Structures are given as C-alpha cells and as structure tokens.
C-alpha cells in the first residue's frame, strides 16, 4: 500500500500512471492500492471527468470509500481508498456524473454521505425496509414544455422480464425524456455475504445476475484467489474460459432473437431460441447445470470433461454456426426488420466515453474496451481474438457486434479446447489468511468488477460487485430520446441491462 498526498486537484494521468506502476509490483491481482487524501480524491474524480482514466467502481468498505480506476492505454488499474470522516467523503458524482447512482446506492446501504452530491434522492431505499420505513414517494426530474405527457411503466412489465419503473415523458409518439427508477429487486447481497464462508459467498456471487452466472463466479473466484494466493491449475483456467464463452454465445444468440421478435419477426426468435436451447442442454450434459451455476469456484472448476465432452462442444459449435448463419442472412435480407433497427436508439459516443460503457453497448459506439483484451487474464492471455467495434451506435450496430462476437467466441473455444492438457481442474485452498483481492472480467454484457476482503478462517469481510449495467442503464435513457415510444422494447432489448445486477 502506498500513500499519496502532496498532489492536489491537478493530478494528471502521468502522475496516476507512475503512482500505480510504483504500487503494482506488490499486488497479485494487478490493482495498485492507493491511500488518498481529500485533494487527491477530488483530483482523481476530476481526472475521470476529463477522460484521463475511467471510473470502474465506487463502494464503501470498512470505513473507507473506495474507487476502482483504470486506464487501458496506460495498462494501469488502481483501487483508491479514502477514510470516511464523520461518515462523509467528497462526492465523486459532483464532478463525474457516472458516480451519481453508485453514491446514492452506497448512501442507502451504508449511510456514507457524499458531500456536495447534486442528486440527493434515495436510490435502493424505497422507504419500505422493515425498521427503516419512511414516506415512500419519489420525485422524478421535472420536464416542462407544451404538449408533453407522461407514461409510467412498471415495475411489473408486460413481458417476462425483471421489474423496474420507467417514466416516459413524450410529445405525442416521440420520447422527450426517459427516467428509470430501479432497486425493486434489491436483495441485500453485500450484507448477506458479510461473514459468510467463501463457499456460501460463491453461491451468492453466482446469483448476482443469473444470466451472467459464470462471469460472476469467474470474477469472484479470481478476487478470492488473488486475496489468498490460490493458484488455479491450467486445465481449470481453460475450462473456465470455455464456460465463459459458452455463456456469451447463449445470450448473444438469445438476444438477437429477442430483438428481432420485438420488431415483430417471431420466426427469428424461434430459430435463435432453438440454438440457445441446444447450448443449454449441452452445458447441462457436460457441466451439470443448464446455465452452469456454481460450476466455476475458487481454486478452479467443479467438473471435468473428457474427450467426448470436448467433441460434443465442437459439434455444438458447428450446429450453432450453421443455424445462426441462416438467421444472419434472414436478418440481413429483411428490409422491414432493418427499418426498425437502423438509426434507432443511438447511444451518444460522448456519453459512452464518459460512462466508460462496456460490452456491446460500448463497442457498438466505438469504444473498443474489452476486459479480456485490455487487462488479459487467464486463459485469455494466450488466445487470439478480435474485439469488433462499430461507430453507428444504434440497435443494428449492437446486433452486429453480437453477431461478430459469436464467431469470436466460437474461435476462442476451439483454441482453448486445443490446448486442454491433462491435469487437475481445481487446487486445494491455501491456508486461509486475511487479504483483499479484486478482479475485472468480461461478462457477455460487458466488464464486471468484483472486490472481496477476507478475514480469518476464510470468511468474507466484504464483497462488492459492479455490473456493466451500472454504466449502461443511463445510456439507455439517453438513447431512447427522440425515438418513438414503440421503439423502446427494441432499444431496451438491444441493451439488455441487468436489473438484478445493479439492484444488488
């Protein structure tokens, strides 16, 4: 741990990079740990706003407010900590809007006050928690203008979908503003993890957002392994990669079908959902669970595959490619479908940069960040793949990013299976000792960050997870502006943000 203090609000990227590099050598997880004073804290918040580095996460742990920052160009990452003073700290959101919801959530959960925060409204606390009830009510931001009307939607939606509230302000058919209110599926995950043994916390992590169960297990395991100095055998690393890519494939295929369905082409949904079902059944047969829940654990993975298992995956890839090729052709040749996706729901590239939006939302708008590439972790440090990007940033571009990533995932799986050498799949835990670790992995919808602190006997002192959706939901709000209300399902599905993952 190093301490920086002399530098003030003029902290520049070079100084950050130097400081991080100086601290890097001591950390197994690749994150430098920096103790900041108030001036440095504010300087870094302003640095995020200036685009010198990306804000990755912000959370409260052990009387500290902590912020994860990274700069992919400089190849540096840091976790910066500031001690709370009388339960307060200088607001990052005051300088850098992407921090606002994170700070509101942390105030609701831990009472930590972000001094100067421009948005005082509660976020996760809806006024109904037992023993903490208060006047419910929530003030949506005011929109003034002639002929505007509001359309409230949710929390219970018309489809089979997670709950959230969307407040549309529209002028006729055209959306003037959308404001989302989330937190409905807040399940108190951080509090549940506190004091839990590592295995129990791993089960919780696998259920942060069920659609990214492998990715969350992967990130949690990495963080725990970094904290304890737990080495994963190569075969375990490779199988993790195979599972993570299968998970990406299944959701990309499913979402392409879902988007087409929202544009009223149900035949493509049927096709895609057949391919998806094929993937889930293969996963079930090989890894013991249709979604591979609890298959990735600290130390490695729980199930091995034999030669016939590897052959089954290769055969699956071929079936996916044949089936999906027809879907792509049909999509490409349907003007009525393209008419709905082209130019619809454009996420502004400026916002994408500001919010450091990950996944296909970022990459469809020119931000090439991919945690598998930017901070390559095993097994991605030894495979070749492309990170596709587009500039249009509309629904169509997000579909094409998915299509291209499906091909890349298949290529990655083939490379990994080709390197599958005999050996153990899981290592026994080293003696438990107090420690901290963090990990950044690429889930299907974007980068996700997990930090853990472990105390004696392998109990979790604190676990924090930041889903990619934190920085994608606000972009969805801006992307729908100027579109018609009827295009919202299309935009929403093309983002496919997680509710569970941000409601924590």
């Amino acid at each position, binding site marked *: 741990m190093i301490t920086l203090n002399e530098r003030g609000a003029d902290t520049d990227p070079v100084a950050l990079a130097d400081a991080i590099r100086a601290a890097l050598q001591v950390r197994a997880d690749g994150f430098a740990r920096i103790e900041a004073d108030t001036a440095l804290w504010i300087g870094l918040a302003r640095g995020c706003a200036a685009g010198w580095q990306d804000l990755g996460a912000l959370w409260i742990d052990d009387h500290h407010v902590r912020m994860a920052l990274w700069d992919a160009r400089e190849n540096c990452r840091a976790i910066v900590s500031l001690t709370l003073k009388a339960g307060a700290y200088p607001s990052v959101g005051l300088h850098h809007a992407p921090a606002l919801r994170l700070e509101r959530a942390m105030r609701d959960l831990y009472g930590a006050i972000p001094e100067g925060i421009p948005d005082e409204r509660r976020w*996760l606390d*809806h006024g*109904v*928690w*037992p023993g903490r009830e208060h006047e419910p009510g929530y003030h949506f931001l005011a929109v003034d203008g002639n002929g505007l009307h509001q359309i409230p939607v949710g*929390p*219970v939606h*018309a*489809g*089979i*979908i*997670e*709950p959230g509230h969307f407040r549309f302000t529209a002028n006729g058919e055209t959306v003037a503003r959308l404001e989302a209110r989330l*937190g*409905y*599926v*807040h*399940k*108190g*995950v951080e*509090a*549940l993890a506190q004091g839990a043994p590592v295995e129990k916390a791993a*089960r*919780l992590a696998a*259920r*942060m*957002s*069920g*659609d990214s*169960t492998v990715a969350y297990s992967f990130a949690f395991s990495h963080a725990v392994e970094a904290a304890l100095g737990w080495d994963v055998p190569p075969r375990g690393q490779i199988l993790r990669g195979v599972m993570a890519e299968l998970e990406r494939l299944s959701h990309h295929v499913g979402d392409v079908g879902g988007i087409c369905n929202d544009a009223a*082409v149900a*035949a*493509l949904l*049927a*096709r895609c*959902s*057949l391919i*998806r*079902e094929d993937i*889930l059944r293969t996963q079930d047969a090989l890894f013991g669970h*249709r*979604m591979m*829940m609890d298959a990735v654990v600290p130390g490695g993975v729980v199930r091995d595959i034999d030669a016939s298992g590897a052959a089954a995956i290769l055969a699956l890839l071929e079936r996916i490619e044949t089936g999906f090729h*027809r*879907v792509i*052709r*049909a999509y490409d*040749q*349907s003007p009525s479908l393209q008419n709905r996706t082209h130019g619809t729901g454009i996420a502004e590239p400026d916002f994408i940069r500001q919010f450091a939006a990950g996944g296909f939302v970022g990459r469809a708008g020119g931000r090439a960040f991919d945690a598998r590439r930017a901070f390559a972790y095993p097994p991605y440090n030894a495979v070749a793949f492309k990170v596709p990007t587009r500039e249009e940033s509309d629904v169509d571009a997000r579909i094409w990013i998915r299509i291209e990533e499906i091909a890349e995932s298949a290529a990655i799986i083939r490379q990994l299976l080709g390197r599958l050498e005999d050996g153990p799949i899981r290592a026994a835990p080293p003696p438990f000792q107090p420690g901290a670790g963090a990990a950044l992995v690429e889930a299907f919808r974007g980068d996700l960050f997990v930090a853990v602190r472990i105390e004696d006997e392998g109990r979790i002192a604190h676990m924090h997870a930041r889903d990619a959706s934190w920085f994608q939901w606000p972009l969805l709000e801006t992307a729908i502006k100027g579109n018609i209300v009827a295009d919202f399902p299309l935009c929403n599905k093309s983002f496919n943000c*997680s*509710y*569970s993952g941000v*409601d924590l």
Partner: protein
Amino acid sequence: MHILLLDALLKGPATERAPSPDEAAVADLARALGTRARARLGRSLAIREVDAGSCNACELEIHALGNPVYDVERFGLKFVASPRHADVLLVTGAVSWNMREGLERTYAATPDPKWVVAAGDCAAGCGVYSESHACAGAVAKIVPVDLVIPGCPPTPTDLLKGLLALVEGATRSPR
C-alpha cells in the same frame, strides 16, 4: 426469410413430447382447487409472470418454455401481458421488500378464480436470499400459494410438469 421457410419444411418439428404432469401435485391440486376451478377454466390457463426479486435466471427458464422445443402454448398455457387477463400468477424471487407492494397489487388486480405458482427456490423460501433483511422470503408469506415448483432455477421441464399439474388438478374432480 425464405431460407428459413424452406428449412422448416424440410426438417421435422423441433417440439418434444410432453412430460407427464407431476402426479402427486395433480392429486393435491385437484383436492385443493377442483370444484372452484372446473366450471370456470376449461383446459387453458392464462399466466402472468411476476419477478418479485429473482436473480433473473428463473425468468430465462420461463422464457425457454416458449421455445419450439417446449412450445408451452400447445397445452393451452399462455403468457399474458396483464394480470387482468390472467388465471395464474407465476411468481419468482425472494420477494424483496421493494417488490412486495408490486406483488400484492398484481395479485389484487388478478380476477378470481386465480392461482399462484411459486417458481424456484427463492420463491419457495429456501433460496440463497432467504435470510436477507431486504427480502420477505417465500412468496407464500405475501400471497396465498397453490403450487411450488422448486429448483434453482427450475428447468423448463420442471416448470412444464408443474403447470400441467395445475391444469389437470384444476380440471379433474376432487377426490
């Protein structure tokens, strides 16, 4: 799109044979709801899904029920957009306190006769969130539950067996 059409004509249907309903559940349900149900329902059910605090994996499997392999609509089971059109509420999740009112109001908006199916370990009250201060726990603590389908998440086959038991139970005479 014509490629898909040709493909569909050449290949057979993807749909699988139906699983038989969960027999024990059928008997229980027939006892519990037989008379009040039979006259009203026929053999079809309109289902409104409610996520009351799930991790979203249960939703993914409920979605899968609609794919051509399970093709849930062939049994007269139909997912509807509003509780006003529903006979059944299919509820997932550990009922977060933040969703309790949403669940209660959805239940109140569903016309009688109505049934509640709690799907998944969370909804059953034994999932990973059951001890959370932020969750009420089992769905049964908030609204009366007629059938529980366990699993984390329940597979589409589990869900289908349970829902078929509901159709059977609701239409078979009580013993």
